[in-house]
C-alpha cells in the first residue's frame, strides 16, 4: 500500500467515525424522547445537550485529523520523496523535514542507510580501481620487459594470428606493415616450417600431455616473405582456459650471418671437393715418377707438367679458403634432437590428405637434424615413391646404425633406379627457399638410395640421418632431486612469523594447498592420499607450477570416503609414501606462505607427518574459511562451494586436491582485494582475520 492510499484509508475511517458518533447521539436523543415524553420541558434541554455533544465530537475529530495530517501524513509524504532521491540519484542526500513530526527515528534511519549505501558504493569503486590499476601495472611491466628484449617476440593464437609482438619483432621483419595485432603470422614468414614445428610439438604433447619443458620448443631456420633468413624458436604455450594464446614465436634476424655461413659452407665444400682431384693426381704423379725411373721423356714431361699445374691449383684454392675462414667467425647450426616417432606421425598425417598411407614399424629412435629439412625430406620421398611407383601404402622403419639412424621406406614393387633418384635431386625444396633437394641432403649430411628388399617383390629406399646421443642417455627426470631439509627448532617459528608480519600481502608468494584423506581423524590412523598445491605470485596464479601427487597411505581407503575423492586403492598403489611426498611438497613451498580452506584441518595432517619426513612447514598458514567469516559475517554459509558462489568463482574438479586448491586460490585472490579495501594489507593483519 502506498502512502496516499494509506492516508485516504485513515481519512475514510475518521469520517466514518464522525458519522457513527453523530448517528449514535441522534439515536440516544430519540430514545430519551420516547421514554420521557411525559416531561416536555426537559425535552428541549436534552436536545440541546445532545446537539452540543455532537458538535464537540465533530470538532474533536476535525482537530485530530488536522494534527495527523501535519505531523504524520505530510512528513511521510516528504520522507518518501527524499528516500527516493537517496535511492536513485544521490545517496549522500541529507533528509530535510519541515518543523515537527511524529516519525521518530525513521528519517534518521533512512539517512544512515543512505550513508552506508554511499560508503559501500565508494568502496566498490575503489576496489575496482585498485584491481584494474594492478592489472594495468602488471601488463605494463610485462610489456616493458618484452619490449626491452633484443629477441623478437610474437605471441599467436591457435590460428597463428598475432596477439602480441615487441619492438624487436618489428625490426626483424623490417617494419613490414603486415605485422599487426590480429593478423596472420604467415603474412610475415613461410608457413611451412612453422606449421611443421607446431605439428611436431602438438604431436609431442599428445604423447606426453604433462611433457617436460624442453620438449615444448623447437628451433629452426625460416625465411621471411621478404626473403630474409631468420632463426626462430616456437614454444607451445600451456593451455589455459579462456586464454587464446597458443604459441610463442621468437625470432632473430640472421640474414647476414646466414649469408656468410652459406657462402663459407659452399666455399668449404667446393674447395674440399676440388682439392681432392689435384691432390690425388699430384700424389699419383710423384709416386709414378718414383716407381717408373726408366720412363720415356714424353711421359715424364707429361707427369711433370701435371705436378706443376696441380701444385698451382692447390696453392690458389688454399689461399682463397684460408682468407675466408680466418676472416669470419664460425656460425651456429640449428639442429634439434627429435624422436623419429614424432616425425613419422607428423608426416603420416600430412600424407593422409594425399591418400598415401605411411605406417611406422620398428622401435622409434632419436635423430639429430634440422627438423624442417628432415620433415620435408621424409614427406618428399614418400610423395616421390608414390609418384614413381604408384604405391599408396608405405612402411617406414627406423634402424640404428653406427652413427646414423636409417629411415627405410618399404613398398611392394621394384627399386627406384639411381637415374630417377638423380632427377629428384634437382627438385626444389620450396619455390622461395631456392634450395635443391641435393643441397638439403648435403646440409643434413645424408644420401639416399634404393635397392631390392630381401623379400622378393619388395623394395627399399634408404635415407640415413645422423643419430642423436639421446639414444643412449636416460630421459631427464621430471623433477630434479631435492635436498632433504633438517628439522628446525620451534622457537624459530615465532621469530620467522614475527619478521613476516609486516610484509605487504601483494609482495608475498603463497602456496594454496589441499589434501584428500582417508578420513577425518589423523590421530586415529587416517592418512593423506592426495596432496596438491598452487602457487600465487604477484596476486596471480602461476599456471605452470602446480604440485599434484597421489600418496600411498600404507592402508586401505575406506569405501565411504571414496565417494568424496574418487581415489581407490589401485590408484595409490606403488605411489610414493607421505614422507617422500612431503619432502617434495616442502621444496615446492619454499618460503611461500601456506593457504588453505579450513587450513587447520589439513595442517594437522601435515604436522603429524613432518617429523618422519624430516621437514618442517614453518611460518603461518592463512585460512580462507576464517577470512570468509570476517568478510561476510552476515551469513553462516562458508563452505568452499558457498564461498566460491558468493565470489563468482567457477567450481571445477571439486573434491580433487588440485581442483580444490585451484578454487581456493581464486577465492583467496579475490579475498585479498576485498581485504585491501578494508585496510587489511599486511600478513600480520590477514593472520588476525583468518583466525575468525
Amino acid at each position, binding site marked *: 500500500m502506498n502512502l496516499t492510499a494509506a492516508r485516504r484509508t485513515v481519512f475514510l475511517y475518521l469520517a466514518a467515525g464522525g458519522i457513527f458518533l453523530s448517528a449514535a447521539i441522534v439515536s440516544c436523543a430519540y430514545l430519551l424522547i420516547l421514554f420521557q415524553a411525559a416531561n416536555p420541558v426537559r425535552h428541549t434541554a436534552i436536545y440541546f445537550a445532545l446537539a452540543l455533544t455532537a458538535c464537540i465530537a465533530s470538532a474533536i475529530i476535525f482537530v485530530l485529523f488536522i494534527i495527523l495530517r501535519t505531523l504524520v501524513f505530510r512528513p511521510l509524504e516528504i520522507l518518501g520523496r527524499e528516500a527516493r532521491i537517496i535511492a536513485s540519484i544521490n545517496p549522500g542526500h541529507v533528509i530535510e523535514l519541515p518543523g515537527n513530526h511524529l516519525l521518530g527515528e525513521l528519517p534518521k534511519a533512512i539517512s544512515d542507510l543512505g550513508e552506508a549505501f554511499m560508503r559501500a558504493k565508494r568502496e566498490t569503486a575503489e576496489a575496482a580501481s585498485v584491481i584494474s590499476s594492478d592489472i594495468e601495472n602488471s601488463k605494463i611491466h610485462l610489456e616493458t620487459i618484452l619490449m626491452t628484449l633484443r629477441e623478437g617476440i610474437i605471441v599467436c593464437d591457435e590460428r597463428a594470428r598475432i596477439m602480441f609482438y615487441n619492438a624487436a619483432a618489428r625490426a626483424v621483419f623490417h617494419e613490414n606493415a603486415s605485422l599487426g595485432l590480429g593478423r596472420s603470422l604467415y603474412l610475415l614468414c613461410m608457413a611451412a616450417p612453422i606449421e611443421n614445428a607446431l605439428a611436431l610439438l602438438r604431436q609431442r604433447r599428445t604423447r606426453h600431455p604433462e611433457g617436460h619443458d624442453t620438449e615444448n620448443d623447437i628451433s629452426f631456420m625460416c625465411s621471411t616473405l621478404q626473403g630474409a633468413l631468420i632463426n626462430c624458436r616456437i614454444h607451445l604455450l600451456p593451455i589455459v582456459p579462456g586464454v587464446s594464446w597458443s604459441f610463442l614465436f621468437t625470432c632473430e634476424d640472421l640474414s647476414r650471418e646466414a649469408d656468410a655461413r652459406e657462402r663459407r659452407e659452399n666455399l668449404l665444400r667446393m674447395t674440399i671437393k676440388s682439392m681432392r682431384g689435384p691432390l*690425388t693426381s699430384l700424389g699419383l704423379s710423384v709416386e709414378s715418377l718414383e716407381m717408373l725411373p726408366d720412363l720415356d721423356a714424353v711421359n715424364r714431361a707429361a707427369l711433370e707438367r701435371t705436378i706443376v699445374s696441380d701444385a698451382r691449383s692447390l696453392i690458389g684454392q688454399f689461399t682463397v679458403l684460408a682468407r675466408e675462414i680466418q676472416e669470419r667467425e664460425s656460425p651456429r647450426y640449428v639442429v634439434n634432437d627429435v624422436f623419429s616417432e614424432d616425425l613419422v606421425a607428423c608426416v603420416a598425417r600430412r600424407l593422409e590428405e594425399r591418400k598415401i598411407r605411411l605406417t611406422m614399424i620398428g622401435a622409434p629412435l632419436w635423430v639429430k637434424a634440422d627438423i624442417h629439412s628432415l620433415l620435408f625430406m621424409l614427406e618428399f620421398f614418400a610423395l616421390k615413391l608414390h609418384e614413381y611407383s604408384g604405391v599408396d601404402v608405405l612402411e617406414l622403419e627406423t634402424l640404428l646404425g653406427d652413427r646414423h639412424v636409417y629411415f627405410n621406406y618399404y613398398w611392394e614393387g621394384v627399386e627406384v633406379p639411381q637415374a630417377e633418384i638423380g632427377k629428384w635431386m634437382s627438385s626444389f625444396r620450396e619455390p622461395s627457399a631456392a634450395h635443391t633437394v641435393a643441397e638439403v641432403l648435403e646440409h643434413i649430411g645424408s644420401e639416399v638410395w634404393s*635397392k631390392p628388399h630381401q623379400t622378393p617383390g619388395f623394395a627399399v629406399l634408404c635415407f640415413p640421418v645422423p643419430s642423436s646421443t639421446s639414444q643412449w642417455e636416460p630421459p631427464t627426470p621430471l623433477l630434479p632431486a631435492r635436498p632433504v631439509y633438517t628439522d628446525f627448532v620451534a622457537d624459530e617459528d615465532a621469530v620467522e612469523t614475527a619478521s613476516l608480519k609486516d610484509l605487504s600481502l601483494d609482495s608475498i608468494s603463497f602456496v594454496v594447498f589441499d589434501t584428500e584423506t582417508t578420513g577425518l581423524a589423523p590421530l586415529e590412523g587416517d592418512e593423506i592420499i592426495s596432496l596438491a598445491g598452487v602457487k600465487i605470485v604477484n596476486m596471480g596464479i602461476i599456471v605452470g607450477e602446480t604440485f599434484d601427487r597421489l600418496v600411498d597411505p600404507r592402508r586401505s581407503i575406506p569405501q565411504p570416503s571414496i565417494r568424496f575423492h574418487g581415489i581407490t586403492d589401485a590408484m595409490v598403489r606403488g605411489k610414493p609414501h607421505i614422507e617422500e611426498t612431503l619432502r617434495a611438497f616442502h621444496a615446492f613451498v619454499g618460503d611461500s606462505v601456506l593457504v588453505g580452506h579450513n587450513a587447520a584441518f589439513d595442517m594437522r595432517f601435515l604436522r603429524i607427518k613432518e617429523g618422519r619426513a624430516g621437514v618442517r612447514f614453518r611460518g603461518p598458514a592463512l585460512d580462507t574459511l576464517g577470512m570468509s567469516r570476517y568478510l561476510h559475517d552476515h551469513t553462516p554459509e562458508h563452505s568452499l562451494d558457498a564461498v566460491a558462489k558468493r565470489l563468482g568463482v567457477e567450481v571445477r574438479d571439486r573434491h580433487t586436491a588440485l581442483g580444490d586448491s585451484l578454487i581456493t586460490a581464486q577465492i583467496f585472490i579475490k579475498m585479498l582485494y576485498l581485504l585491501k579495501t578494508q585496510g587489511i594489507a599486511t600478513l600480520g593483519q590477514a593472520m588476525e582475520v583468518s583466525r575468525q
Partner: protein
Amino acid sequence: MHRILIVDDEPNIVLALELLMKKEGYEVHTVDDGDRAVQAAKELRPDLILLDIMMPKMDGYEVCQRIRSDALLKDVSIIMLTAKGREVEREKGLALGADHYITKPFSTRQVVMKVKEILAARSSQ
C-alpha cells in the same frame, strides 16, 4: 691378362692411374664419362672397373647400378673412387653394387694393392 677400365673425368688422374696399371701388367682402357663407361663395359667386358662417382651427365652410382643390372656384367668387379668422403656415400656405393670404395686423395700403393687383391680373389674362384 686382366682387363681394367678406368672411368674418370679428371685427365691427370686418368694419366697416372693408366701408367701405374700398365706397369703392373694389366690391359688398360680409359673413358671420361658415365655413358661411355656403360658402353665400354658392355663391349670390353673388363675384369675390373675403377669408377669415379662425380661425373657430368651420368654419375658413378648410376653407372654402377646399370652394370649390375646387366646379367652379362654382373661379375665385373667395381672399385669406386670419390671426391666425397662421407660414410653415407660409401654405404650408398656398396648398396648399389660396388665391391670397394676409395676416397680421394689416395696413394698409388693403396689402389694397386686393392686391385691386385680383388683380381686375385676372382682368379681363385
